[in-house]
Structures are given as C-alpha cells and as structure tokens.
C-alpha cells in the first residue's frame, strides 16, 4: 500500500459564484414533483437520479457508484429573480451604506481607499484581525453625503431585518442591490476585506441556488410504505414552486404588484431554507405545525453538526457499567467483568511468533472467554467467530499477516473515564483485570481524581485499538503517572476515609501486635517480602508496634519530618517531643515518631506520599499505595471501627457549660442591640450602623458556637483518653471524614443559619415568624440554632435550618449547570494552547501567548505545592543525609 502524504497549508473560505454553482451542478432542477406514480424519481425533480443514490442496489447516474460509495452531486435551481442570502444580509447592508449609489465606489477619496487596502493586506500577512480596519473604513465612509468620485448625492440606506433595504424610504429590490454590488471594482472590494479570487460582493445575492445532493436529505420510507421527505426537500419544493410561478408571471407580463409579491415570497422561502430561526419572520412550518429544520438548524446548537457530530462523535470498543470498590487490586488496575471482556477486543497482528497462541484464541471463538471475536484478513474483510463453522474456516485460513481481534485480557491497557471530564485525570489508563461480577472494580485511591463514589456511579471503558495509542496510554496516561496533580503539585491520588482513620489507629503509640497478629496482617495484605523483613527486626517483649510494621513499606533511605494533621498547633512546637505524637519523623525508612493521617498519604494532602513520588518515582509510589491500602484495610477490618450517636454523648457538666456560653452570648447580643437602640453603637469604617450591628451579632454568635464546640471536643477527648474509642472524633482529627465543626453541630450547637450570608431576615412584616414579637432582632428570632443535632431542634429552629438547607440545595443545583457552561467556554478558549519545547506557550497559529510557561517554565505537577523550589526541604534533605 502506498501512502500519500500531503500537508495542509491552509484553508480559505469563499462564496460560491453563480458560475461555480452551475459548474458543480449536474442537474438543473425545474419541477417541484419528486416521484412519479410508479415511485420512480422524476428527471429534473428534486430526487433526480443524477444527484446521487440513497437506495441500495441502484447506481448513480452521474458517477456510476453504488449507494454508500457515491457521495452525491449538487444540482441547481435557476432563480427567476435574484434573492438576498440571509447569512450575508447584514454584510450587504454595511456595504450598501458605504458605496456610492451611482458609481458603486467607496465613498472615500482614492488615497484613503488605497491606504485601507494596504493596511488590510498587511494585517492579513501577520495574522492580525482585519475586521477592526474594515470597521474603521465603515465608520469613515458611512457619513459621506456626496460621492468624492462622481459627485452624486447619497441617499440614506436603512436595513430592515431580515432582508429588506430601504433607500430614502424606498425599497431596493435584490436586483438593484446586486447591480450595485456588481459595479464595485476589484480594488474597492479588497478594501472592503474581500478576496476577489474567491468572493465577489455580488455573490452575496443569489441568482442560482445550489441544490444539495439527495444523500444530504434522504427520504425515509415509513412502515406503511409511504415516503416521507426530509425537511430540506420540503423547503426546496416550496422554492421551486414559487420560482416557477414567478417565472410564469414574468413571462406572461403580469402586473408589477403580483410579481413583487411572488418575489417577496421567494425571498421568504430562500431565507427560511437557509435559516428557519431568523428574527422578524415566522418560521416555515411542517403540515403538522412543527417548524422545519433547515440548513442553519442542522449546524447549530448542542445536537448540531459541530457540537453533536464533530466534537462529540460516538465510539466503538467502549463499555459502561456501575463501579464498585476493590482495595485488593492495584491503583493501576481496573476490574473488568468477563461479559465486558468478551465483547471488547484488541487487534493483534499474526506473526510467526504468536500464531500458535492466537490460534488457540481463535479456536475458543467468541463465546468462550479467552477467545477472539473476529479474524481480519489482510484485505480487511472479517470473519465473525460466533459460529463453530466460521471458527473452523478461520482456523484453516489463519496465517501470518492476519489480524485477530482477541478478547480483552489481564494486563491490557484500557482507558477509564468518568464524566464530567473536568481535568486530565478524568481519563486515565488502567491495566485490565478480568473478574467475575458485573461491575467495574477500582482501587479506592483513584476515587478522588475521578471524583467517584459508589452510590450508583457508572464509568466508561475504552479498549485501545492501535499500538501507538497503546504505547502513549501506557507511558503518559497510566494511573501511577497521574498521582501528582498539575493543579496543585501534590498527590491527587491517595488514601481516603478508612485508609486514613485506619492508618491513624495503626500507627498510634499504643498500637502493638503480637508476632502472630503482625504476620497475619502482612499475610492478608499480601506483603510476603515484608514478612521476612519483620522477622529480622527485634520485637519488644514479643510485640511489634504499628509504627514498626508501617516502616516496612517505606523506602529504606527515606528521611522526612513534618507536622501531622492531628497537630494541635501549639504555640511552641516541641517537634520530636510532641506529646500528641503529631510530629512525624522518618529516619532512614523508619517511622520513629508521629502518626500517619491525612497529611501523610491522603489525597490532596499527603506529604509522605508526595515525597515518595517525587524522590523514588511513580513505581515505588504505586507500590506504596497498593500496600498501604491493603495493610490498613486489613487492620481496620480486623480491629473494627464504628461511629454512633453515643460518640456525641457529653457529660452533664459539659452540657451546662455549653448552655452557659450560649446563654451568655444571647445576652450579649441583647446588650449590643440595646446599645444600638440607644445609639451607643459605633459604626465600623465603611459600614452603616445596621451592618455593624449585624456583623457584631454574627461574630458573637459564631464565637459562642466555636467555644461550645471546643468544650465539647475537650470532653470528648477526655472520654477518649479513658480508653473509649470515639469513631467520630478520630475521623475528624485524622482527616478521614468530617470536621470538628460537624462534631460541634452534632454535640454542642448547630449555630447561626444563614441565607445568602446574612441572618434570616425575610418573612412577615417586622419579624421572621409569628412566634416572635415584632421588631425582635435577637439571636433566636433571626435563625440562631442553639440546640445540637443530637438534642434536637425546636420547631422554629428546625424551620430556620430548613431555610438554610434549602439555599444549599438550590446552590448546588444552579452551580452544576453553570460550571458545565463555564467549562465549555474555557475549553473553547484554551483548546489550541500548547507549551512548545522552547517553553513558550503558543496558539494554533503559532503565535506566542506566553514567552515562558507560567513565567517560570515549571511543570506544576512537579512543583512542591506550586512552589518551584522549596528551599527548606532541600536543606533538610542535605542535612539528614549527613547526619
């Protein structure tokens, strides 16, 4: 096979000239009828066989090709009178306003015209927008009252949408318009931005209408055997009918009014043929009252040709099903149901080296799992392996050079995607792991980049069909290569929920394991090498600490120090001697101090994970994540972990203290209100007195809530120290799920409810609810919820809470639709930008947009949380290596 290579240098758009239209036309269409009584297309009708074939079995009268091969051929309608092309109506109006009504020259002195021509030429050369220059010319010429060339007095041109032009209130017919446009000299046309080689101004007024081939507007045959024509055909029939009548009337010498009426009607039909949603005229309708879908409607909008068929093509070799979690597979893998694996195929070329293997697959056929669905001959024809007979045939034939479309197998690279695809980590390459069951399985660590959960989410999988694509996917798109997010230069793939709380409990000081327990854990986690390593370590009277076991996963020469998530942010940090074990010290691959939590390997935050990826590479990082998730899940499954309403139990004393604080805050609010009423309140700079009051009240109440939260936390901590596990608190402090605020709301006080950032203010006149006195602006009356979720809300509190909650619901609903649109606009604006090898950012035309990408040339994914160089870390690394 010979390969032709051509480089597209550029694309030029022009307007079809009448001659071009006639030239490309293979048939002149004259009759509005399509088929005769026998159902055969009429010559000279809209279904003229010369226009191409759509019915299978027939041959095209022009090119002789069969349906499917023949692309179709254009015909034409010779219009009895010229007609304005709506698409150019505005353009024509602009030109009419700046050319002389007598001589059709631009109403500017010759020198000026020449100057504009030159400027446009230059702008075109350097790729600048010429529209601005034309605007300038337009603004200069439109005011001119007397033609500088012929001295003719100029009329006032008015454009009436969609296709009418008035001169001094008198209508200009399309013929008049065309005449004027024809007279424009080539030089003047250039000054108007025309490239006369491909577009002359008068081409904007149609004299011949191209008729698209039947392949563009196929008729469908209904079940009843009736033919139903395409909307375009309907519209063309209308045009021909009116055109015919117009022609006849002109020839018969009918009165001017009748001709004008018909002409107008022809203009209407041609206008709606191009665009049936033109403002100012009623859309042409189908007999049923449905507006016709004409040319512009085919292209426009979400389901139009561009967005629906070109940007959004549909693909083969893809699968979609529900996802579910599997902590036992690698983050690089995806669990694929056998049913899917049997349907999706990978093309493999037969060589002397794999022919035996492939023969086995072909022998298994399409229905037995490791099999194949098709065998493709070198000429491209395919044998489907769904029947024993065809399998036999294929086996006999199979030879080097054939292509076997074999089932998806373990280790194949596939693309995995979850919508909305908002960033590049929404599509990643996974290795296939064929499994029983009907769902796609994925490791929990990859949930964050996909933003997936398992409440019924579905994902798509694409089997890669080419070697180049496969290599690219493996090198660039594999999950492990996406651990670092280019969004913030930290890991986006990492532990979530139970991984975090599990690791926290696992690495706590108190956590110790007997030898058997430790080995069992490692065995469940499939960390066989680590078992040997552990046995070499010395145990403390037969016990291994969690930190000791955890260290087995760490690279041996890793040195790292950081503050964990559980850090209490004391005023002076004691570092290694942290009483809460919140300062992590890793020395030579041993976890000496500190607990593992969100800051160590959580998605979006993991420092330890971040260090491993950056210093040891993605292979090590993947291994680390796989092991840690298995180990920690094994541990937490064995240990057990729960949360319940008793996690928020507070002693009577705590409740009293909280109540005191809240009551005091309410009193304080009353005091401030009194101050305000007596005029003693000082307004804050830039605020009115009322705003100041509101802010003060909000501040007092939020402080009170925080304080009550602190008290609640204090007591919860005390209870925990006595040895009772408090799941809710552990999750909150380790960063696994929830926050201290959530705890506060459950245990102590829900706090102020707000709508659009303000206290509840709408409602009945002078008050929110009739439960309060008019003019009451105290805490309770404006939506402060003193109760906790656990103690239960009073009716008014409940209602205020529902108000605040409603705002949240509305917000999410409105935001999702808005963010989709924003994303679309961003993509459209940025799609062509690319960082070249010289570090410049350029657009599609190769114009430089930024001289250095990001002004520092750094790849954000490789930065340290956005910072190009983290001096502190470098120093630490050097020091630790020495010491």
């Amino acid at each position: 096979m010979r390969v032709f290579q051509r480089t597209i240098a550029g694309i030029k758009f022009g307007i079809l000239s009448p001659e071009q239209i006639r030239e490309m036309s293979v048939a002149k269409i004259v009759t509005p009828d399509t088929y005769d009584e026998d159902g055969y297309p009429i010559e000279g009708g809209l279904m003229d066989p010369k226009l191409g074939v759509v019915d299978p079995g027939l041959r095209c009268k022009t090119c002789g090709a069969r349906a499917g091969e023949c692309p179709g051929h254009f015909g034409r309608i010779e219009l009895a009178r010229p007609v304005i092309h709506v698409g150019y109506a505005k353009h024509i109006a602009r030109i009419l306003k700046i050319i002389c009504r007598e001589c059709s020259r631009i109403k500017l002195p010759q020198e000026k015209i020449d100057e504009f021509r030159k400027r446009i030429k230059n702008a075109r050369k350097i790729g600048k927008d010429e529209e601005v220059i034309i605007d300038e010319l337009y603004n200069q010429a439109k005011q001119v009252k007397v033609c500088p060339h012929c001295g003719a007095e100029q009329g006032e041109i008015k454009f009436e949408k969609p296709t009418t032009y008035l001169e001094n209130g008198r209508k200009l017919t399309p013929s008049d318009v065309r005449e004027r446009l024809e007279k424009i000299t080539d030089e003047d046309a250039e000054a108007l931005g025309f490239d006369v080689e491909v577009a002359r101004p008068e081409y904007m007024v149609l004299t011949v209408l191209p008729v698209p081939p039947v392949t563009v507007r196929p008729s469908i045959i209904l079940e009843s055997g009736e033919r139903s024509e395409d909307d375009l055909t309907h519209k063309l029939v209308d045009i021909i009918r009116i055109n015919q009548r117009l022609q006849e009337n002109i020839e018969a010498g009918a009165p001017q009014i009748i001709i004008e009426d018909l002409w107008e009607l022809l203009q209407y039909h041609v206008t709606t043929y191009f665009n049936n949603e033109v403002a100012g005229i009623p859309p042409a309708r189908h007999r049923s009252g449905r507006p016709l879908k004409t040319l512009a409607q085919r292209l426009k909008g979400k389901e139009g040709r561009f967005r629906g068929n070109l940007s959004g093509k549909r693909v083969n070799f893809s699968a979609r099903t529900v996802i579910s979690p599997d902590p036992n597979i690698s983050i690089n893998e995806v669990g694929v149901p056998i049913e899917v694996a049997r349907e999706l195929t990978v093309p493999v070329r037969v060589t002397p080296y794999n022919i035996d293997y492939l023969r086995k697959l072909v022998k298994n056929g399409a229905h037995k799992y490791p099999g194949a669905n098709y065998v493709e001959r070198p000429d491209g024809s395919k044998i489907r392996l769904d029947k024993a007979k065809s399998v036999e045939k294929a086996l006999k034939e199979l030879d080097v050079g054939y292509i076997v479309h074999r089932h998806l197998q373990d280790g194949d690279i596939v693309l995995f995607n979850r919508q909305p695809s908002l960033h590049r980590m929404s599509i990643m390459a996974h290795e296939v792991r064929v499994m029983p069951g009907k769902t796609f399985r994925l490791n929990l660590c990859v949930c964050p980049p996909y933003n997936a959960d398992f409440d019924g989410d579905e994902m798509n999988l694409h089997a890669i069909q080419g070697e180049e694509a496969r290599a690219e996917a493996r090198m660039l798109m594999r999950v492990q290569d996406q651990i670092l997010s280019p969004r913030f230069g930290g890991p986006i793939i990492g532990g979530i929920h139970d991984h975090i709380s599990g690791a926290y409990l696992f690495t706590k000081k108190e956590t110790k394991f007997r030898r058997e327990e430790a080995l069992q854990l490692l065995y469940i986690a499939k960390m066989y090498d680590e078992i040997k390593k552990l046995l070499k370590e010395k145990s403390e009277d037969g016990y291994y600490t969690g930190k000791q076991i955890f260290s087995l996963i760490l690279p041996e020469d890793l040195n790292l120090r950081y503050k964990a998530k559980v850090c209490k942010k004391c005023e002076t940090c004691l570092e290694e001697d942290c009483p809460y074990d919140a300062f992590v010290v890793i020395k030579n691959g041993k976890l000496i101090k500190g607990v593992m939590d969100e800051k160590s390997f959580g998605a979006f935050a993991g420092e330890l994970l971040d260090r491993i990826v950056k210093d040891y590479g993605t292979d090590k990082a993947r291994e680390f994540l796989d092991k840690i998730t298995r180990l920690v899940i094994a541990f937490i499954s064995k240990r057990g972990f729960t949360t319940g309403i008793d996690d928020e139990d507070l002693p009577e004393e705590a409740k009293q203290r909280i109540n005191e604080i809240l009551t005091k805050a309410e009193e304080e609010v009353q005091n401030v209100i009194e101050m305000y009423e007596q005029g003693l309140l000082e307004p804050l700079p830039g605020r009115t007195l009322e705003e100041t009051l509101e802010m003060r009240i909000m501040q007092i109440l939020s402080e009170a809530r925080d304080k009550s939260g602190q008290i609640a936390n204090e007591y919860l901590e005390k209870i925990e120290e006595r040895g009772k596990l408090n799941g809710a608190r552990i999750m909150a402090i380790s960063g696994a799920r929830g926050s201290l605020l959530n705890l506060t709301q459950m245990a102590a006080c829900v706090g102020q409810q707000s709508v659009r950032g303000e206290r509840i203010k709408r409602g009945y006149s002078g008050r929110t609810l009739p439960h309060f006195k008019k003019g009451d602006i105290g805490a309770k009356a404006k939506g402060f919820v003193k109760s906790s979720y656990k103690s239960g809300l009073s009716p008014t509190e409940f209602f205020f809470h529902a108000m605040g909650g409603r705002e949240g619901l509305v917000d999410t609903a409105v935001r999702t639709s808005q963010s989709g649109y924003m994303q679309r606009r961003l993509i459209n604006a940025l799609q062509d930008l690319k960082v070249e090898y010289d570090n410049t950012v350029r657009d599609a035309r190769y114009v430089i947009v930024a001289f250095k990408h990001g002004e520092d040339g750094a790849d954000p994914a490789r930065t340290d949380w956005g910072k190009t160089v983290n001096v502190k870390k470098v120093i630490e690394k050097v020091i630790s290596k020495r010491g």
Partner: protein
Amino acid sequence: MGLNLRPLAIAFLKKRELVRQHIDSFNDFVENRLQSIVDEVGIIETDVDYHIKLGKIRVGYPEVIEADGSRKKLYPMEARMRNLSYFAPIYLEMTPIREGIEGETDPNVPIGMLPVMLKSKVCNLYGLSDEELMRVGEDPLDPGGYFIVNGSERVLVTIEDLAPNKIILERPERYSKITEVAKVFSKRGGFRALVTVERDREGLLYVTFPSLPGNIPLVILMRALGIETDQDIVNAIALTQDQEILNEILVNIETFMDIRTKEQAMEYLGKKVAAGQLKEYRLKRAEQIIDKYLLPHLGTEKEDRIRKAKYLGRMALRVIELALGKRDVDDKDHYANKRLRLAGDLMEDLFRVAFYSLVRDIKYQVERSVVRGREPTVRNVVRSDILTERIRHALATGNWVGGRTGVSQLLDRTTYMSVVSHLRRVVSPLSRSQPHFEARDLHPTQWGRICPNETPEGPNCGLVKNLALACKFSTGTSEEEVEKLLIELGVRPIGRL
C-alpha cells in the same frame, strides 16, 4: 414532650382528607362557576334572526356511550381498565329567539362531556361506603381528586401565582435606571390585565395598561376618568398634609397643565390609542379602552370610572411613598402575595375557552343552516364534540389554554405516599432555567402551608413544592358580602357617577 399530640393529628387528618382542596374546588366549579361562565355569554347572538338564550347548566353523572349507542353508568375502575374517559354529560337550557319572541325552551340540550374528578359531588363514587367502594372496584383508601382520561389518571397540579387584584410595589432596575413601580394584575373572569403606575427619575407618574401603546401621564388619565380639578386629583391621591407627598403630586399636576378638562384628556388618550382615525372614532375608542382594559376588576361600566381613578390614586400614593422611603417594596415571595390555583380554577379557564369556541361554532351553525334555508333547532346546531374534545385534549396532554404545558400530569402511582404527594403538589410558573434564588428560598410565610422539607433536588428545587399536612385552603368570599359588612361597619363607599 409530655403532651401526646398523635391522637390529635390522627383526628385532624380523619376530618379533613388529604386532597380535600381539589375536590372542594372542583365541586365549586361544577356548582357555581360553570353557571357563571354560561351567564357571561347569556345570549348567543347571530347575524341572522335566530338567537339562542342560554339558561341553567347541569352536569350529569359519568357514563359511557357504547359502540351501539347505549348509555351506561360508568365507574372509575371500568374507565381505567377499558381506557375510557370518566366524563359526565353536560346539559344546557336553551331557548331560541326569533323576531324577538322566545320559542320553546329545551331544558336538556347536551353540549358535551365534562371530566369528572373522582370523589367529587358528580362522581359516581360520591358518598359510597367502604364496602360499596370495594364492590365497584375502588380502593377505599384512594383519595380521589384526579381525573381519568382515556384510561390514564390525570392530576391537575396546583399552580402558584402572584395574587391578582393586589397592588405590588417594585423597584425594577432597567438599564441601571432605578424607578418605582406599582403593579396590579387586574383580573375579571378569564381576562388578566397588568396595570402599572410608574414614577420616572423626574418624579413624574405614568400609567400603563393593556392595548395602550406606551404610557399615559397619571394626571391626564385621572382627568379623563372624570376627576377634573387639581384639588380633586390631589385628594384622590392623598388626603394628607404631608408636604413632601403634596409636592410630588404638584410636580405632576404642573407638568401636565396643558390638559385641564375631561374632554381634552379624552382627546389626548384618543390620539394615543387610535392615532390617525376620525375624531368620533378616537373618542369612542378611548372610552372603550378605559372601561374595558383599565383595571377591569373594578368594573367595565362607565359608572366605575371614579373608582378606577381613586384606585389609581392609591397606587400612585404608594409609589410616591416608596420613592420617599416611607414604604418598602413588597416581598413577592410573601405567601400573602400568592394565590394557589386548584383543579377547579384550572378547569374554569379551560371550560371557558372550550365553551366560547362552542358558542362560536353554534353561531356558525345557526347562520349556515339559515343561509341554506333550513330551520335551525337548538339540538341541531350544537356539536357537542367541540367542547368535549377541546377539554379532553388539554387534559390528556397537559397543554392548557394560554400555552401552559404540564398542567395535567399522569398520577404517580409508585406508592400510596407518592400519590398523596402528587395530589398535594404546588408548582411555580417561574422558569427553571434561571436562578431565581429568592423564589426558591423557603420563605418564613410558608410555615404551616408548604412543607419545608419536600422539594426536589436539581433544577426544580424550590419551585416545585408540596402542601404542609395541616394546610387548609380558603376559597374566597363574595365581594358583595365583604362590601356589605364593611359598610355596616361604617365604611363610606366611593360615590359612583
């Protein structure tokens, strides 16, 4: 906590079933409003000497007309099973009038079929005991309140609308210009007219109302309505000594000094509404417009003009007060400013349109048979399908009159609760594509009326609501009664001309 309110709640719900509002509303429609729609027409006048006087309208009980033409009592279950419509025949009393002489009255002209709401007074299930209900195939716990059209159960969803005939103050921002506007949706019968009084930046007051191109200065309109002297205009707007308000009014009076009399004002109005016509026609048209399109809820007769002027004065005062900061804009989401349109109201709209098209058709039929030299009879000129099909089509597709869609919905039978919830649904006509944050909020005035929790997530959030359990509907009181009571209490009526 000690008080057990459960028995109370149970007793409460037993006494007032969950879909009472719809059934009551439909009953009211059948018993009163149907007749008033007929009375609006009164006599069908034709271009030939054969008119028809309309009398009492009566609704029968649901029945089915079989293929052989026999009629049989229809129960809902049979309608559901056989894909029939649960419709009852409507009979109208008609009297032909020839040469001014009334002919023989036909008290039972069938003019079409009316969809019957289950468990309403004209429903065959009305008043049946549980055992009887079971005997005719009904679930005794089924709440009713829906229709059956072509075998499918259709709910007319309650629509939440801005209250008509109520002045609402707004401060709209148009092209960064802030003005003060008092709006009122004046409603009379099926006609809704938006009348506004607007104060521009210079403090001048203008009125707009339907069929008036642009606007007209308030002062001039007042004069056209018969309040001629400056003092009367001031009094009509505000009986106050407040200098600020008086100044505002005086500015208006002084600006439009050229037109001082009623005649001049009418001429001014005529030039606006019928430019380029003859003078007599202009004046006629002007009179017609102020009577028919300006505040029609106050009446459409000449005598009502003074009341309209006073009403406009009241609107103007509010606008002035708003501009002077003595008053605040009205909260459109306040439930006092909302009205719920139930099944009966919606059926009224639909029936009115269908009935008018029937009347038009009758007129056409009468004229046609007279032209053809045949003697029309009241039975022959009524083509009952016109009314029936118009109503059936609207109910079956949800495409209501006025271009509203989704008014009738297929009853959600997922569970018993979804049925009840669907029958108690309230939708706002606001578009779901725009944010409308305020309208979606839970408003404190919804307490006790609308459920604070039940609203869908997504684009309809806060626009689709459900009634609170204890919500009760008031159906309005007749104006005469209120007027009578007020006068008894010492309110002085505005003098009529």
